């Protein structure tokens, strides 16, 4: 286990698909939530295991506190404020993520993602040509993008871990996800909901372009 720990510390949390290596405000905000929850959980875990250790090893110690106090303190007083704060924070954060992590005034870039067995197709209704790309999603960096996701066969899930959380592609429904890439670059995307034997290979790439290259990128894609 130590060895495993060491190895992973070396590798860090980076990776093309790592939610802990955020490249946009949504993913960054969720990663921050994770680190806070991890720290709090580690403390709580140590507390409970410490109490268990003390209770077993030093029976005199725990007896000074009445059974009632043990239960009320640990079962109510301890968790309630923590859960309260966490739930409210998560609600506020959810609102922030639904806005795409950006300010509201900013205009959205809209794209459409269609999950089919087993590849992703993207369309760009904001452009006059409304081109279709397969397996690669082009977005402008630094802009909030709203992806309208759907499916024509089974349920898939649209996920670009470094940019945002996932949203399911449900046949008969359209779901929306807002995300933003801080910088131009390539980001991995994949299907997260089991959708049949091709599920493991249902990947795609996100190319975030500088604002001025965006149209060209879509145009080039269309030309051949």
């Amino acid at each position, binding site marked *: *286990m130590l060895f*495993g*720990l060491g190895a992973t510390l070396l590798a860090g*949390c980076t*990776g*093309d*698909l*790592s*939610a802990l290596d955020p490249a946009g405000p949504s993913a960054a*905000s*969720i990663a921050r*939530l994770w680190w806070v*929850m991890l720290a709090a*959980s580690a403390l*709580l*875990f140590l507390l*409970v*295991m410490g*109490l*268990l250790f*003390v*209770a*077993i090893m030093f*029976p005199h110690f*725990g*007896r000074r506190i009445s*059974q009632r106090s043990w*239960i009320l*303190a*640990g*079962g*109510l007083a*301890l*968790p309630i404020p923590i*859960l309260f704060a966490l*739930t409210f924070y*998560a*609600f506020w*954060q*959810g*609102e922030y*993520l639904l806005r795409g992590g950006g300010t509201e005034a900013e205009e959205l870039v809209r794209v459409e993602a269609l999950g089919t067995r087993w590849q992703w197709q993207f369309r760009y209704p904001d452009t006059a040509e409304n081109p279709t790309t397969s397996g690669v999603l082009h977005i402008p960096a630094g802009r909030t993008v709203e992806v309208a996701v759907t499916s024509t*066969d*089974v*349920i898939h899930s649209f996920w670009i871990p470094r940019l*945002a*959380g*996932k*949203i*399911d592609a449900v*046949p*008969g*429904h359209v779901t929306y996800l807002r995300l933003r890439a801080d910088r131009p670059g390539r980001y*991995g995307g994949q299907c*997260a909901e*089991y959708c049949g*034997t*091709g*599920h*493991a290979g249902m990947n795609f790439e996100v190319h975030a372009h500088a604002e001025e290259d965006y149209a060209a990128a879509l145009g080039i894609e269309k030309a051949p």
Partner: protein
Amino acid sequence: MTDHHEKPTSPIALHHALDRIWGTKSGWGRLATVNHNVVGKRFMLTALIFFAIGGLLAMLIRTQLASSQSAFMDAEQYAQVFTMHGSVMMFLFAIPFFEGLTIYLLPKLLGTRDLAFPRLTAYGFWCYLFGGSILIIALIGGVAPNSGWFMYTPLSSDIYSPGINSDVWLLGITFVEISALSAAIEIMVTILKLRASGMSLDRMPIFAWYMLIVATMMLVGFPPLILGSILLETERAFGLPFFDPNRGGDPLLWQHLFWLFGHPEVYIIFLPAAGAISTILPVFAGTPLAGYRIIIAALVSTAFLSFGLWVHHMYAVGIPHVALSFFSAASALVAIPTAIQIFAWLATISHGRPRFSVPMLHIIGFFFVFVIGGLTGVMLAMVPFDWQAHDTHFVVAHLHYVLVGGFVFPMLAAAYYWLPHITGRQPVQHLSQAAFWMIFLGFNITFFMMHLTGLRGMPRRVFEYPPESGWEMLNFFSSLGSFVMTMGFALVALDFILLFRFGRPFRRNPWRAGTLEWAMPTPSPSYNFASLPVIDRRADMLDPDVLGPQLAAGKGLLGFPRDGRMELLAVDIVTGKPEHVVRLPRQSFMPLWTAIGTGFFFLSLLFKFYWVTPFALASVVFMFLLWSRDTAEKDDLGNLPIGNGQELPPHIEAERPPSWWAMVFALVADATAYISLLFGSLFLWISAPNWPPQDIGQIGLLGPAIAAVSLVLAAWSGRQASAGGGKGAVGWLSLTTVGHLIATTVFLWLALTALPSPRSHAAVASIFVVFIYAAMHSGLGAVFAGYGIWRVRSGFVSPRRNLDLRIGVLWHGFAAMVGLAAAGFPFVLASLTSEVSP
């Protein structure tokens, strides 16, 4: 009268006399046994075999994932393996194992001799065995289910899963769930009615409280799943489009029905294990459980909350955020009752003098692993975090921390604690410690770093992953750890075998416990207690060493055989005051035959021999009616002596005997399924695309009105029949039969002629199924009424013995309510969709 009982002179003579009545026969007779000792052990053993199969599948998964591009399995094989691993572990191992443990232990903890319906226990076991075998045979044949253990549509629908695979799951699991529902009813009735004299509700051993809550949750948790499975099977087999968005169905309906079951399911698995801890831990702490009442309150709130947070499995399907927050808050709240239990256990330990022992070691393992699982659970309850972690290996890690921590470790503790009871031997303890450490370390090596694997982006259910993903090292360690864990489990198995072979016999109560199951010889006799105890304090603070010999000597109640009948006491639900004598039916092959008939029913559906289905179904109903022959009496027995100078009536002359309650609970389950159906249709109206339907047919007012009137008539005359106490009953019951038959005909006629094709739209399909549901209920009502006539004619009914008729009243009333709702349902649906009129 029939009061031919003589008091055997010595404990040994008493033992022989009782064992002749309660004991299992040899040879083929074993298949006829209904005794909870035997059936409980069979349940547990079968569940362990399924655990081994599930574990083997887990090893295949870990072998495959140990490297990134493994050629060990292809995608299809991997799909069958992970689907079966999950399904086997949840449905064929976890639930049946605690059912078995409960079946074995509950009557002993309550101070009685058996469960309320021993033949139902046996029937449940056979259904479990046969249903589970169907799944395993499919696995061996390479046609196992392959859409994941929650079987999301449309992937599991006929278009994308044309083979038999999904049918195997839907029908096999439903077959197994019969045993879960029958166990739920049986456990509830047993706890409420069959306790020791003087064991009021607030003196029950805490395990009984846990199981009362769990059984209630099962009673309302399983029907949505069963209903969903039936709807999906009708879609696959007959094209009724409940989940097809092109025809007004919605894949999300399946998710709601599944998780409405699936989340409570997690607590249904955890709570029995927690109940075992609450029983075992105080014994090793050497002090009674702290916070008995607070724990009960915590259990009740867990039960309520657990039905209000299923949507946390669906955060990513696009539900409005405000609705999500509600479920998120509920999911966070459910941590509180769990925290209360954890701290009640800590309080118990800290006020006692803890002793170390193997069960205690596993309880410490439970604390370590389960607390981590609980903490990651709270993380996942937070919507934003779940949007990232959902469907990744983070969730795989979380669910194993909860299930292995919250179920496997406590059950290992329970096994080490109660195996001496089952075998009459104490462990020699050489392997136990090493086995524990291998499981504990192996488990954490396997699953701890898997949290990170998931956060670094590895989705669940992938059979290969890119080598450059950086997940390979983590996966390799997970696989390594899983092999250590497997060796640990192998050591436990060896340890148990050694215990059976070489364990030291002991006299009584080896752990110095204060509960009733130790107040009997071990291995336990078939009848548990030679005479039934009278309790005057909380039933975990008793002294089995004093009580045991007294009971064996026949100093308690019913300490004598009578008429060769298995007898036990039923008490008042709240106070525990003895109320009547329950005379259980004899051992019988009927449960086996009925289960075989049920098996034919499911196989006919699986292999699409639909012409067999009605015959199989009729044979099952007929056999169930035959069951009642054994408990009937042609004469009023009057009060029966129960010892110590007291007398009580037999159950068939009592006001509210166990079978009456069983009918009430069965109807609760039935109503839950029906309500899920009605609300499911309304959900489609709200959520599904392609609504409203073009046409929902010409139902008119006349048909529904006739059905409604005749059902009210049937229910009313059923009531008259029982009120008259047998006199004039035949006339009234004939009226009931006629009323039911008219309603059945009307509903069938409406379903088959007044509706457009139910394949055309989910709205039509809903109305169709609601009508069929109502027709089946009134059809059965006619059968019950006819059966009542036969019972009256044969002299089994008198003003004192009119139980059959009173149970009938319940059914007739319920069938009328189902029918009235069905008659009104098309109008509700039509007014909602407003453009069309029925």
